Protein backbone atom coordinates (compact mmCIF):
# COMPACT_ATOMS: atom_id res chain seq x y z
CA UNK A 1 0.00 0.00 0.00
CA UNK A 2 1.77 3.12 -1.26
CA UNK A 3 -0.15 5.50 1.03
CA UNK A 4 1.27 3.56 3.97
CA UNK A 5 4.81 4.03 2.63
CA UNK A 6 4.24 7.77 2.22
CA UNK A 7 2.71 8.05 5.72
CA UNK A 8 5.62 6.16 7.25
CA UNK A 9 8.19 8.33 5.43
CA UNK A 10 6.41 11.49 6.61
CA UNK A 11 6.54 10.32 10.22
CA UNK A 12 10.15 9.17 10.02
CA UNK A 13 11.29 12.36 8.29
CA UNK A 14 10.79 14.37 11.48
CA UNK A 15 11.76 11.70 13.96
CA UNK A 16 12.03 13.91 17.04
CA UNK A 17 8.58 15.41 16.47
CA UNK A 18 7.06 11.97 15.90
CA UNK A 19 8.84 10.63 18.98
CA UNK A 20 7.43 13.43 21.15
CA UNK A 21 3.97 12.93 19.68
CA UNK A 22 4.04 9.18 20.37
CA UNK A 23 5.34 9.87 23.89
CA UNK A 24 2.42 12.27 24.46
CA UNK A 25 -0.06 9.64 23.34
CA UNK A 26 1.68 7.00 25.45
CA UNK A 27 1.53 9.27 28.50
CA UNK A 28 -2.21 9.78 28.02
CA UNK A 29 -2.71 6.01 27.69
CA UNK A 30 -0.56 5.36 30.77
CA UNK A 31 -2.82 7.69 32.78
CA UNK A 32 -5.88 5.96 31.29
CA UNK A 33 -4.55 2.53 32.28
CA UNK A 34 -3.46 3.68 35.74
CA UNK A 35 -6.85 5.27 36.55
CA UNK A 36 -8.75 2.26 35.22
CA UNK A 37 -6.59 -0.17 37.23
CA UNK A 38 -6.89 1.97 40.36
CA UNK A 39 -10.68 2.27 40.15
CA UNK A 40 -10.98 -1.42 39.31
CA UNK A 41 -8.73 -2.34 42.23
CA UNK A 42 -10.64 -0.08 44.59
CA UNK A 43 -13.93 -1.64 43.53
CA UNK A 44 -12.48 -5.13 44.06
CA UNK A 45 -11.14 -4.16 47.49
CA UNK A 46 -14.39 -2.58 48.66
CA UNK A 47 -16.42 -5.47 47.31
CA UNK A 48 -14.10 -7.95 49.01
CA UNK A 49 -14.35 -6.06 52.28
CA UNK A 50 -18.14 -6.04 52.09
CA UNK A 51 -18.68 -9.54 50.78
CA UNK A 52 -15.63 -11.24 52.29
CA UNK A 53 -17.67 -12.62 55.20
CA UNK A 54 -21.05 -12.77 53.56
CA UNK A 55 -22.73 -14.42 50.61
CA UNK A 56 -22.82 -12.98 47.11
CA UNK A 57 -26.33 -14.32 46.59
CA UNK A 58 -28.78 -15.47 49.29
CA UNK A 59 -31.54 -17.85 48.35
CA UNK A 60 -34.64 -18.30 50.48
CA UNK A 61 -38.20 -19.43 50.10
CA UNK A 62 -40.39 -17.02 48.19
CA UNK A 63 -42.51 -14.90 50.54
CA UNK A 64 -46.06 -16.06 50.95
CA UNK A 65 -48.54 -13.57 49.60
CA UNK A 66 -52.15 -13.28 50.78
CA UNK A 67 -54.50 -14.06 47.94
CA UNK A 68 -58.22 -14.24 47.32
CA UNK A 69 -59.60 -17.77 47.32
CA UNK A 70 -62.76 -18.74 45.46
CA UNK A 71 -65.57 -19.65 47.83
CA UNK A 72 -67.73 -22.71 47.59
CA UNK A 73 -70.69 -20.61 46.47
CA UNK A 74 -70.60 -18.40 43.39
CA UNK A 75 -70.80 -15.16 45.37
CA UNK A 76 -68.52 -16.10 48.20
CA UNK A 77 -64.83 -15.39 48.34
CA UNK A 78 -62.34 -15.80 51.14
CA UNK A 79 -58.83 -14.54 51.91
CA UNK A 80 -56.09 -17.11 52.40
CA UNK A 81 -54.39 -16.59 55.72
CA UNK A 82 -50.64 -16.58 55.95
CA UNK A 83 -49.40 -18.66 58.78
CA UNK A 84 -47.24 -16.68 61.15
CA UNK A 85 -46.28 -19.72 63.11
CA UNK A 86 -45.04 -21.82 60.24
CA UNK A 87 -41.40 -21.07 59.40
CA UNK A 88 -40.54 -20.31 55.76
CA UNK A 89 -38.21 -22.98 54.54
CA UNK A 90 -36.72 -24.62 51.47
CA UNK A 91 -37.89 -28.20 51.78
CA UNK A 92 -36.30 -29.58 48.61
CA UNK A 93 -32.94 -27.99 49.31
CA UNK A 94 -30.74 -30.98 48.24
CA UNK A 95 -32.10 -30.59 44.68
CA UNK A 96 -31.44 -26.86 44.72
CA UNK A 97 -27.93 -27.38 46.11
CA UNK A 98 -27.23 -29.94 43.36
CA UNK A 99 -28.36 -27.39 40.76
CA UNK A 100 -26.17 -24.70 42.29
CA UNK A 101 -23.12 -26.95 42.43
CA UNK A 102 -23.53 -27.69 38.72
CA UNK A 103 -23.00 -24.00 37.86
CA UNK A 104 -19.33 -23.36 37.00
CA UNK A 105 -19.50 -19.71 38.11
CA UNK A 106 -20.58 -20.70 41.64
CA UNK A 107 -17.58 -21.38 43.87
CA UNK A 108 -19.24 -22.11 47.24
CA UNK A 109 -22.67 -23.29 48.38
CA UNK A 110 -23.83 -23.35 51.98
CA UNK A 111 -27.32 -24.51 52.96
CA UNK A 112 -28.16 -22.93 56.30
CA UNK A 113 -30.72 -22.60 59.01
CA UNK A 114 -30.82 -19.05 60.27
CA UNK A 115 -32.80 -17.90 63.23
CA UNK A 116 -32.86 -15.70 66.27
CA UNK A 117 -32.18 -16.77 69.83
CA UNK A 118 -30.94 -15.61 73.20
CA UNK A 119 -27.83 -16.78 74.96
CA UNK A 120 -28.43 -16.93 78.69
CA UNK A 121 -25.73 -17.17 81.30
CA UNK A 122 -26.97 -16.62 84.84
CA UNK A 123 -28.51 -13.18 84.82
CA UNK A 124 -26.83 -12.14 81.57
CA UNK A 125 -28.87 -12.45 78.38
CA UNK A 126 -27.70 -11.54 74.87
CA UNK A 127 -29.59 -11.68 71.57
CA UNK A 128 -27.85 -13.76 68.95
CA UNK A 129 -28.30 -14.63 65.30
CA UNK A 130 -27.81 -18.32 64.78
CA UNK A 131 -26.21 -19.54 61.59
CA UNK A 132 -26.39 -23.28 61.31
CA UNK A 133 -24.19 -24.79 58.63
CA UNK A 134 -22.82 -28.06 57.38
CA UNK A 135 -19.83 -28.60 59.73
CA UNK A 136 -17.67 -29.54 56.74
CA UNK A 137 -18.47 -26.22 55.05
CA UNK A 138 -18.08 -23.85 57.97
CA UNK A 139 -15.70 -21.61 56.00
CA UNK A 140 -17.62 -21.71 52.73
CA UNK A 141 -19.07 -18.23 53.14
CA UNK A 142 -17.28 -16.67 56.12
CA UNK A 143 -13.70 -17.58 56.88
CA UNK A 144 -14.25 -18.51 60.54
CA UNK A 145 -11.67 -21.22 61.21
CA UNK A 146 -8.63 -19.02 60.41
CA UNK A 147 -10.07 -16.36 62.69
CA UNK A 148 -10.52 -18.48 65.80
CA UNK A 149 -8.72 -16.98 68.75
CA UNK A 150 -9.50 -19.85 71.09
CA UNK A 151 -10.91 -23.39 70.91
CA UNK A 152 -11.52 -25.26 67.66
CA UNK A 153 -13.88 -24.99 64.71
CA UNK A 154 -15.33 -28.49 65.13
CA UNK A 155 -19.10 -28.22 65.05
CA UNK A 156 -20.26 -31.40 66.71
CA UNK A 157 -23.58 -31.96 68.45
CA UNK A 158 -24.34 -29.29 71.06
CA UNK A 159 -21.39 -27.18 69.90
CA UNK A 160 -21.42 -23.44 69.38
CA UNK A 161 -18.92 -20.94 67.97
CA UNK A 162 -19.33 -17.34 69.06
CA UNK A 163 -17.62 -14.03 68.38
CA UNK A 164 -15.14 -12.38 70.67
CA UNK A 165 -17.39 -9.45 71.66
CA UNK A 166 -20.32 -11.73 72.49
CA UNK A 167 -18.01 -13.88 74.59
CA UNK A 168 -16.80 -10.79 76.42
CA UNK A 169 -20.37 -9.54 76.98
CA UNK A 170 -21.37 -12.83 78.57
CA UNK A 171 -18.00 -13.57 80.17
CA UNK A 172 -17.70 -16.80 78.22
CA UNK A 173 -14.64 -18.74 77.16
CA UNK A 174 -14.07 -21.92 75.17
CA UNK A 175 -15.30 -25.08 76.84
CA UNK A 176 -17.95 -23.35 78.94
CA UNK A 177 -21.63 -24.26 78.76
CA UNK A 178 -24.34 -21.75 77.95
CA UNK A 179 -28.13 -21.87 77.60
CA UNK A 180 -29.59 -21.12 74.18
CA UNK A 181 -33.26 -20.12 73.92
CA UNK A 182 -34.57 -19.98 70.33
CA UNK A 183 -37.41 -17.90 68.95
CA UNK A 184 -39.32 -21.20 68.70
CA UNK A 185 -39.24 -21.41 72.50
CA UNK A 186 -36.81 -24.34 72.66
CA UNK A 187 -34.04 -24.29 75.30
CA UNK A 188 -30.81 -26.25 75.14
CA UNK A 189 -27.45 -26.30 76.87
CA UNK A 190 -24.59 -25.87 74.40
CA UNK A 191 -20.83 -25.91 74.74
CA UNK A 192 -18.70 -23.04 73.47
CA UNK A 193 -16.26 -24.86 71.19
CA UNK A 194 -14.47 -21.83 69.84
CA UNK A 195 -14.33 -18.04 69.85
CA UNK A 196 -13.57 -16.10 66.67
CA UNK A 197 -12.53 -12.55 65.84
CA UNK A 198 -13.36 -11.38 62.29
CA UNK A 199 -12.98 -7.67 62.99
CA UNK A 200 -16.58 -7.09 61.88
CA UNK A 201 -18.67 -5.90 64.81
CA UNK A 202 -21.87 -7.36 63.38
CA UNK A 203 -20.32 -10.82 63.28
CA UNK A 204 -18.25 -10.71 66.45
CA UNK A 205 -21.10 -9.37 68.61
CA UNK A 206 -24.24 -11.00 67.25
CA UNK A 207 -23.54 -14.20 65.32
CA UNK A 208 -23.10 -17.73 66.56
CA UNK A 209 -22.42 -20.80 64.43
CA UNK A 210 -23.67 -24.33 64.99
CA UNK A 211 -24.25 -27.45 62.90
CA UNK A 212 -27.39 -28.02 60.88
CA UNK A 213 -28.17 -31.15 62.91
CA UNK A 214 -27.98 -29.21 66.17
CA UNK A 215 -30.22 -26.47 64.79
CA UNK A 216 -33.04 -28.68 63.45
CA UNK A 217 -34.77 -29.41 66.75
CA UNK A 218 -33.98 -25.95 68.07
CA UNK A 219 -35.82 -24.25 65.19
CA UNK A 220 -38.30 -27.04 64.60
CA UNK A 221 -37.09 -27.72 61.09
CA UNK A 222 -36.73 -31.48 60.79
CA UNK A 223 -35.86 -31.53 57.07
CA UNK A 224 -35.68 -28.11 55.40
CA UNK A 225 -33.28 -25.18 55.50
CA UNK A 226 -34.15 -21.50 55.74
CA UNK A 227 -31.66 -20.24 53.23
CA UNK A 228 -28.86 -21.24 50.90
CA UNK A 229 -25.87 -18.88 50.64
CA UNK A 230 -23.58 -18.89 47.65
CA UNK A 231 -20.34 -17.29 46.52
CA UNK A 232 -19.61 -16.72 42.86
CA UNK A 233 -16.39 -16.12 40.91
CA UNK A 234 -17.20 -12.53 39.98
CA UNK A 235 -19.14 -10.71 42.72
CA UNK A 236 -20.05 -7.97 40.24
CA UNK A 237 -22.22 -10.51 38.41
CA UNK A 238 -24.30 -11.30 41.49
CA UNK A 239 -27.38 -9.55 40.09
CA UNK A 240 -27.38 -11.61 36.90
CA UNK A 241 -26.79 -14.77 38.90
CA UNK A 242 -29.60 -13.94 41.34
CA UNK A 243 -31.97 -13.29 38.48
CA UNK A 244 -31.01 -16.59 36.83
CA UNK A 245 -31.36 -18.58 40.06
CA UNK A 246 -34.66 -16.99 40.90
CA UNK A 247 -36.03 -18.05 37.53
CA UNK A 248 -34.49 -21.53 37.69
CA UNK A 249 -35.62 -22.43 41.21
CA UNK A 250 -38.71 -20.31 41.85
CA UNK A 251 -37.07 -19.20 45.10
CA UNK A 252 -36.18 -15.66 46.11
CA UNK A 253 -32.53 -14.88 45.29
CA UNK A 254 -31.05 -11.67 46.69
CA UNK A 255 -27.72 -10.34 45.39
CA UNK A 256 -25.33 -8.72 47.85
CA UNK A 257 -25.78 -5.35 46.17
CA UNK A 258 -29.42 -5.18 47.30
CA UNK A 259 -28.21 -5.16 50.89
CA UNK A 260 -25.48 -2.59 50.18
CA UNK A 261 -27.13 -0.04 47.93
CA UNK A 262 -25.03 2.85 49.23
CA UNK A 263 -21.82 0.99 48.37
CA UNK A 264 -23.12 0.28 44.90
CA UNK A 265 -23.93 3.97 44.46
CA UNK A 266 -20.44 4.90 45.66
CA UNK A 267 -18.83 2.42 43.25
CA UNK A 268 -20.96 3.76 40.40
CA UNK A 269 -19.99 7.35 41.23
CA UNK A 270 -16.35 6.31 41.42
CA UNK A 271 -16.59 4.57 38.05
CA UNK A 272 -18.14 7.71 36.55
CA UNK A 273 -15.31 9.84 37.89
CA UNK A 274 -12.86 7.40 36.36
CA UNK A 275 -14.71 7.57 33.04
CA UNK A 276 -14.44 11.36 33.08
CA UNK A 277 -10.68 11.18 33.65
CA UNK A 278 -10.43 8.61 30.84
CA UNK A 279 -12.43 10.88 28.53
CA UNK A 280 -10.14 13.82 29.32
CA UNK A 281 -7.07 11.65 28.64
CA UNK A 282 -8.51 10.60 25.29
CA UNK A 283 -9.52 14.18 24.45
CA UNK A 284 -5.98 15.40 25.12
CA UNK A 285 -4.62 12.63 22.87
CA UNK A 286 -7.02 13.57 20.08
CA UNK A 287 -6.20 17.29 20.36
CA UNK A 288 -2.45 16.56 20.43
CA UNK A 289 -2.54 14.31 17.38
CA UNK A 290 -4.85 16.64 15.47
CA UNK A 291 -2.72 19.73 16.11
CA UNK A 292 0.51 17.94 15.14
CA UNK A 293 -1.00 16.64 11.90
CA UNK A 294 -2.60 19.99 11.07
CA UNK A 295 0.88 21.53 11.33
CA UNK A 296 2.30 18.75 9.19
CA UNK A 297 -0.41 19.28 6.56
CA UNK A 298 0.40 22.99 6.49
CA UNK A 299 4.14 22.37 6.27
CA UNK A 300 3.68 19.95 3.39
CA UNK A 301 1.26 22.10 1.39
CA UNK A 302 3.55 22.38 -1.61
CA UNK A 303 4.18 18.62 -1.66
CA UNK A 304 0.47 17.95 -1.48
CA UNK A 305 -0.02 20.65 -4.12
CA UNK A 306 2.29 18.90 -6.59
CA UNK A 307 0.52 15.60 -5.88
CA UNK A 308 -2.82 17.24 -6.63
CA UNK A 309 -1.36 18.86 -9.77
CA UNK A 310 -0.36 15.40 -10.92
CA UNK A 311 -3.90 14.25 -10.40
CA UNK A 312 -3.20 12.07 -7.36
CA UNK A 313 -6.71 11.40 -5.98
CA UNK A 314 -7.88 13.21 -2.85
CA UNK A 315 -8.57 9.77 -1.35
CA UNK A 316 -4.86 8.94 -1.49
CA UNK A 317 -3.92 12.11 0.40
CA UNK A 318 -6.64 11.46 2.98
CA UNK A 319 -5.30 7.93 3.40
CA UNK A 320 -1.77 9.25 4.00
CA UNK A 321 -2.96 11.41 6.90
CA UNK A 322 -5.36 8.84 8.36
CA UNK A 323 -2.56 6.26 8.29
CA UNK A 324 -0.25 8.68 10.10
CA UNK A 325 -2.93 9.05 12.80
CA UNK A 326 -3.34 5.27 12.92
CA UNK A 327 0.40 4.65 13.30
CA UNK A 328 0.83 7.34 15.97
CA UNK A 329 -2.26 6.12 17.87
CA UNK A 330 -1.38 2.44 17.69
CA UNK A 331 2.30 2.90 18.61
CA UNK A 332 1.44 5.32 21.43
CA UNK A 333 -1.32 3.03 22.70
CA UNK A 334 0.90 -0.07 22.76
CA UNK A 335 3.69 1.86 24.45
CA UNK A 336 1.24 3.45 26.91
CA UNK A 337 -0.33 0.08 27.75
CA UNK A 338 3.11 -1.40 28.44
CA UNK A 339 4.15 1.60 30.56
CA UNK A 340 0.78 1.62 32.35
CA UNK A 341 1.01 -2.10 33.11
CA UNK A 342 4.58 -1.69 34.37
CA UNK A 343 3.57 1.28 36.54
CA UNK A 344 0.60 -0.62 37.99
CA UNK A 345 2.74 -3.70 38.70
CA UNK A 346 5.30 -1.52 40.46
CA UNK A 347 2.69 0.32 42.51
CA UNK A 348 0.90 -2.93 43.40
CA UNK A 349 4.19 -4.25 44.78
CA UNK A 350 4.57 -1.38 47.23
CA UNK A 351 3.30 -2.51 50.63
CA UNK A 352 2.49 -0.87 53.94
CA UNK A 353 4.24 -1.99 57.16
CA UNK A 354 1.40 -4.48 57.80
CA UNK A 355 2.15 -6.20 54.49
CA UNK A 356 -0.98 -4.98 52.71
CA UNK A 357 -0.66 -3.11 49.39
CA UNK A 358 -0.25 0.67 49.76
CA UNK A 359 -2.56 1.26 46.79
CA UNK A 360 -5.55 -0.91 45.95
CA UNK A 361 -4.47 -1.21 42.33
CA UNK A 362 -5.39 -4.13 40.08
CA UNK A 363 -2.88 -4.30 37.17
CA UNK A 364 -5.03 -6.86 35.37
CA UNK A 365 -7.95 -4.42 35.29
CA UNK A 366 -6.17 -1.68 33.33
CA UNK A 367 -8.70 -1.69 30.50
CA UNK A 368 -5.93 -2.40 27.99
CA UNK A 369 -8.14 -3.44 25.10
CA UNK A 370 -10.34 -0.36 25.57
CA UNK A 371 -7.24 1.86 25.80
CA UNK A 372 -5.78 0.32 22.66
CA UNK A 373 -8.99 0.51 20.63
CA UNK A 374 -10.15 3.94 21.85
CA UNK A 375 -6.72 5.57 21.47
CA UNK A 376 -6.14 4.18 17.99
CA UNK A 377 -9.66 5.13 16.95
CA UNK A 378 -9.27 8.56 18.59
CA UNK A 379 -5.99 9.21 16.76
CA UNK A 380 -7.55 8.22 13.43
CA UNK A 381 -10.53 10.49 14.13
CA UNK A 382 -8.08 13.25 15.10
CA UNK A 383 -6.41 12.94 11.71
CA UNK A 384 -9.65 13.43 9.77
CA UNK A 385 -9.49 17.22 10.04
CA UNK A 386 -5.87 17.55 8.81
CA UNK A 387 -6.52 14.89 6.16
CA UNK A 388 -9.46 16.86 4.78
CA UNK A 389 -7.47 20.09 4.97
CA UNK A 390 -4.61 18.50 3.01
CA UNK A 391 -6.95 17.03 0.41
CA UNK A 392 -8.53 20.46 -0.12
CA UNK A 393 -5.21 22.13 -0.95
CA UNK A 394 -5.52 24.05 -4.22
CA UNK A 395 -2.60 22.78 -6.34
CA UNK A 396 -2.18 26.07 -8.17
CA UNK A 397 -2.05 28.09 -4.96
CA UNK A 398 0.35 25.64 -3.29
CA UNK A 399 2.72 25.50 -6.29
CA UNK A 400 2.83 29.27 -6.65
CA UNK A 401 3.83 29.72 -2.99
Amino acid at each position, binding site marked *: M*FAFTVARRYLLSSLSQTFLLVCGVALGVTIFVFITALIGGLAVLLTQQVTGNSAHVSIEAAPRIARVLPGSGLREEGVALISTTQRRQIRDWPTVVALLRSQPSIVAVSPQISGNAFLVRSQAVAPVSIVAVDPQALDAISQITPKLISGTGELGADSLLIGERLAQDLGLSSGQVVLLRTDRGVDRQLTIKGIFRTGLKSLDERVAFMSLQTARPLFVLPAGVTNIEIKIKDPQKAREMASFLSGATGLRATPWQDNNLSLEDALTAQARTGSLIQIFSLASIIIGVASALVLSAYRRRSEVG*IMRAYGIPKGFIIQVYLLQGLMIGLTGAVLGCLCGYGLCLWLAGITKPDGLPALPIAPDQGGYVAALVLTTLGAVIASILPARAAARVDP*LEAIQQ
Partner: protein
Amino acid sequence: MTTILEAHGIEKTFRNGDEVTEVLKGIDLDLSGGDLVALVGASGSGKSTLLSIIGLLLRPTAGTLSIGGERVDLMSDAQRALFRNKKLGFVFQFHHLLPDFTAMENVAFPAAAPAGGITRDMRQRARDLLTKVGLEDRIDFPATRLSGGQKQRVAIARALMNRPALVIADEPTGNLDRESADRVLDLLREVNTQEGATFLICTHDERVAKRCSRQVTLSDGKVIIGGV
Protein backbone atom coordinates in the same frame (compact mmCIF):
# COMPACT_ATOMS: atom_id res chain seq x y z
CA MET B 1 0.73 16.06 -37.58
CA THR B 2 -1.99 15.25 -35.06
CA THR B 3 -3.43 18.17 -33.19
CA ILE B 4 -2.83 17.66 -29.50
CA LEU B 5 -4.35 20.84 -28.14
CA GLU B 6 -7.16 23.01 -29.47
CA ALA B 7 -8.10 26.10 -27.50
CA HIS B 8 -10.75 28.42 -28.90
CA GLY B 9 -11.98 31.69 -27.48
CA ILE B 10 -10.46 31.08 -24.06
CA GLU B 11 -11.35 33.87 -21.67
CA LYS B 12 -10.55 34.25 -18.01
CA THR B 13 -11.91 36.89 -15.71
CA PHE B 14 -11.07 37.21 -12.03
CA ARG B 15 -13.51 38.93 -9.69
CA ASN B 16 -12.59 40.48 -6.38
CA GLY B 17 -15.74 42.08 -5.04
CA ASP B 18 -16.73 44.74 -7.55
CA GLU B 19 -13.32 44.66 -9.15
CA VAL B 20 -13.21 42.61 -12.38
CA THR B 21 -9.90 41.73 -14.03
CA GLU B 22 -10.00 40.34 -17.55
CA VAL B 23 -6.78 38.36 -17.91
CA LEU B 24 -7.42 36.33 -21.08
CA LYS B 25 -9.51 37.84 -23.87
CA GLY B 26 -10.29 35.08 -26.33
CA ILE B 27 -7.23 32.95 -26.86
CA ASP B 28 -7.06 30.64 -29.87
CA LEU B 29 -4.19 28.16 -29.78
CA ASP B 30 -3.47 24.87 -31.51
CA LEU B 31 -0.53 22.60 -30.72
CA SER B 32 0.55 19.64 -32.81
CA GLY B 33 2.05 16.39 -31.56
CA GLY B 34 5.79 16.68 -30.94
CA ASP B 35 5.77 20.49 -30.92
CA LEU B 36 8.23 22.32 -28.66
CA VAL B 37 6.46 25.60 -28.16
CA ALA B 38 7.60 28.63 -26.21
CA LEU B 39 4.91 30.79 -24.69
CA VAL B 40 6.35 34.25 -24.29
CA GLY B 41 5.14 37.65 -23.31
CA ALA B 42 5.61 40.42 -20.83
CA SER B 43 4.69 40.06 -17.17
CA GLY B 44 0.92 40.28 -16.76
CA SER B 45 0.25 39.23 -20.34
CA GLY B 46 -1.63 36.14 -19.11
CA LYS B 47 0.99 33.41 -19.79
CA SER B 48 0.75 31.71 -16.43
CA THR B 49 -3.05 31.89 -16.41
CA LEU B 50 -3.22 30.31 -19.87
CA LEU B 51 -0.76 27.63 -18.78
CA SER B 52 -2.87 26.88 -15.69
CA ILE B 53 -6.00 26.58 -17.83
CA ILE B 54 -4.28 24.27 -20.30
CA GLY B 55 -2.85 22.31 -17.34
CA LEU B 56 -6.43 21.87 -16.04
CA LEU B 57 -5.53 23.60 -12.79
CA LEU B 58 -7.89 26.48 -13.53
CA ARG B 59 -11.20 26.63 -15.38
CA PRO B 60 -11.72 29.18 -18.16
CA THR B 61 -14.56 31.68 -17.89
CA ALA B 62 -15.44 31.05 -21.53
CA GLY B 63 -14.13 29.12 -24.53
CA THR B 64 -13.53 25.49 -25.42
CA LEU B 65 -10.48 23.37 -24.71
CA SER B 66 -9.65 19.97 -26.15
CA ILE B 67 -6.56 17.92 -25.38
CA GLY B 68 -5.93 14.74 -27.30
CA GLY B 69 -9.39 15.09 -28.81
CA GLU B 70 -11.19 15.20 -25.44
CA ARG B 71 -13.25 18.19 -24.30
CA VAL B 72 -11.48 18.76 -21.02
CA ASP B 73 -13.36 21.97 -20.24
CA LEU B 74 -16.55 19.95 -19.78
CA MET B 75 -15.02 17.46 -17.36
CA SER B 76 -15.76 17.21 -13.64
CA ASP B 77 -12.99 17.92 -11.11
CA ALA B 78 -12.38 14.20 -10.59
CA GLN B 79 -12.22 13.58 -14.34
CA ARG B 80 -9.82 16.49 -14.76
CA ALA B 81 -7.59 15.10 -11.98
CA LEU B 82 -7.53 11.70 -13.68
CA PHE B 83 -6.80 13.35 -17.03
CA ARG B 84 -3.94 15.36 -15.53
CA ASN B 85 -2.49 12.17 -14.12
CA LYS B 86 -2.69 10.18 -17.32
CA LYS B 87 -2.19 12.73 -20.10
CA LEU B 88 -0.30 15.74 -18.73
CA GLY B 89 3.17 16.32 -17.33
CA PHE B 90 4.30 19.35 -15.34
CA VAL B 91 7.64 21.05 -14.81
CA PHE B 92 7.56 24.09 -12.57
CA GLN B 93 10.07 26.82 -11.84
CA PHE B 94 10.69 25.14 -8.49
CA HIS B 95 11.19 21.39 -8.70
CA HIS B 96 8.66 20.50 -5.94
CA LEU B 97 10.25 17.09 -5.34
CA LEU B 98 9.11 15.07 -2.34
CA PRO B 99 12.08 15.43 0.03
CA ASP B 100 11.52 12.12 1.85
CA PHE B 101 11.81 10.06 -1.32
CA THR B 102 14.63 9.03 -3.63
CA ALA B 103 15.03 10.32 -7.19
CA MET B 104 13.55 7.09 -8.54
CA GLU B 105 10.57 7.21 -6.17
CA ASN B 106 9.90 10.84 -7.07
CA VAL B 107 9.86 9.98 -10.77
CA ALA B 108 7.61 6.96 -10.24
CA PHE B 109 5.23 8.79 -7.88
CA PRO B 110 2.59 9.96 -10.44
CA ALA B 111 2.15 6.35 -11.56
CA ALA B 112 2.65 4.65 -8.20
CA ALA B 113 0.18 6.63 -6.05
CA PRO B 114 -2.98 5.81 -8.04
CA ALA B 115 -1.80 2.20 -8.55
CA GLY B 116 -1.09 1.65 -4.86
CA GLY B 117 2.62 0.94 -5.20
CA ILE B 118 5.69 0.96 -7.38
CA THR B 119 5.61 -2.02 -9.73
CA ARG B 120 8.65 -3.50 -11.42
CA ASP B 121 7.65 -1.85 -14.73
CA MET B 122 7.32 1.53 -13.03
CA ARG B 123 10.71 1.13 -11.41
CA GLN B 124 12.28 0.27 -14.76
CA ARG B 125 10.58 3.20 -16.51
CA ALA B 126 11.75 5.58 -13.77
CA ARG B 127 15.31 4.25 -14.05
CA ASP B 128 15.22 4.65 -17.84
CA LEU B 129 13.99 8.22 -17.53
CA LEU B 130 16.62 9.10 -14.93
CA THR B 131 19.26 7.61 -17.21
CA LYS B 132 17.86 9.67 -20.05
CA VAL B 133 18.20 12.88 -18.01
CA GLY B 134 21.74 11.92 -17.06
CA LEU B 135 21.13 10.87 -13.48
CA GLU B 136 21.84 7.14 -13.74
CA ASP B 137 24.28 7.47 -10.84
CA ARG B 138 21.73 9.28 -8.65
CA ILE B 139 18.78 6.90 -9.00
CA ASP B 140 18.59 5.92 -5.34
CA PHE B 141 19.77 9.24 -3.95
CA PRO B 142 17.38 11.03 -1.60
CA ALA B 143 15.95 14.13 -3.27
CA THR B 144 17.50 16.31 -0.58
CA ARG B 145 21.01 15.25 -1.62
CA LEU B 146 20.66 16.41 -5.24
CA SER B 147 21.81 19.78 -6.60
CA GLY B 148 19.31 22.35 -7.97
CA GLY B 149 19.96 21.33 -11.60
CA GLN B 150 19.73 17.63 -10.74
CA LYS B 151 16.44 18.19 -8.95
CA GLN B 152 15.02 19.97 -11.98
CA ARG B 153 16.14 17.08 -14.20
CA VAL B 154 14.36 14.67 -11.85
CA ALA B 155 11.26 16.89 -12.17
CA ILE B 156 11.49 16.59 -15.98
CA ALA B 157 11.79 12.81 -15.71
CA ARG B 158 8.76 12.80 -13.39
CA ALA B 159 6.78 14.81 -15.94
CA LEU B 160 7.42 12.10 -18.53
CA MET B 161 6.66 9.11 -16.28
CA ASN B 162 3.10 8.48 -17.49
CA ARG B 163 3.99 9.12 -21.17
CA PRO B 164 1.92 12.32 -21.31
CA ALA B 165 0.49 13.79 -24.51
CA LEU B 166 1.44 17.28 -23.35
CA VAL B 167 4.11 18.55 -20.97
CA ILE B 168 3.58 21.98 -19.49
CA ALA B 169 6.67 23.74 -18.23
CA ASP B 170 6.45 27.02 -16.35
CA GLU B 171 9.82 28.82 -16.33
CA PRO B 172 11.69 25.47 -16.05
CA THR B 173 15.08 27.19 -16.02
CA GLY B 174 14.06 30.20 -13.94
CA ASN B 175 15.78 28.98 -10.79
CA LEU B 176 18.93 27.62 -12.42
CA ASP B 177 22.34 29.07 -13.23
CA ARG B 178 23.23 29.47 -16.89
CA GLU B 179 25.10 26.19 -17.21
CA SER B 180 22.36 24.15 -15.55
CA ALA B 181 19.72 26.00 -17.55
CA ASP B 182 21.49 25.08 -20.82
CA ARG B 183 21.66 21.45 -19.79
CA VAL B 184 17.95 21.42 -18.92
CA LEU B 185 17.10 23.02 -22.26
CA ASP B 186 19.18 20.47 -24.14
CA LEU B 187 17.39 17.81 -22.20
CA LEU B 188 13.94 19.18 -22.98
CA ARG B 189 14.77 19.21 -26.71
CA GLU B 190 16.17 15.71 -26.46
CA VAL B 191 13.19 14.16 -24.69
CA ASN B 192 10.85 16.08 -26.95
CA THR B 193 12.43 14.26 -29.87
CA GLN B 194 12.84 10.89 -28.17
CA GLU B 195 9.53 10.67 -26.27
CA GLY B 196 7.47 12.49 -28.91
CA ALA B 197 5.67 14.48 -26.23
CA THR B 198 4.45 18.00 -26.99
CA PHE B 199 6.04 20.67 -24.81
CA LEU B 200 4.53 24.03 -23.98
CA ILE B 201 7.14 26.11 -22.20
CA CYS B 202 6.27 29.40 -20.58
CA THR B 203 9.36 31.59 -20.37
CA HIS B 204 10.71 35.07 -20.01
CA ASP B 205 14.08 33.99 -21.28
CA GLU B 206 14.69 34.78 -24.96
CA ARG B 207 17.44 32.16 -25.17
CA VAL B 208 14.96 29.50 -24.14
CA ALA B 209 12.34 30.75 -26.58
CA LYS B 210 14.79 30.79 -29.47
CA ARG B 211 15.67 27.13 -28.94
CA CYS B 212 12.02 26.09 -29.28
CA SER B 213 10.55 25.07 -32.62
CA ARG B 214 7.72 27.59 -32.34
CA GLN B 215 6.92 30.73 -30.38
CA VAL B 216 3.53 31.96 -29.24
CA THR B 217 3.50 35.53 -27.99
CA LEU B 218 0.86 36.86 -25.65
CA SER B 219 0.13 40.49 -25.00
CA ASP B 220 -2.62 41.90 -22.84
CA GLY B 221 -4.49 38.60 -22.73
CA LYS B 222 -4.41 37.96 -26.48
CA VAL B 223 -2.21 35.91 -28.79
CA ILE B 224 -0.42 38.33 -31.03
CA ILE B 225 1.98 35.93 -32.77
CA GLY B 226 1.83 32.20 -33.56
CA GLY B 227 -1.47 31.12 -32.03
CA VAL B 228 -3.00 28.91 -34.69
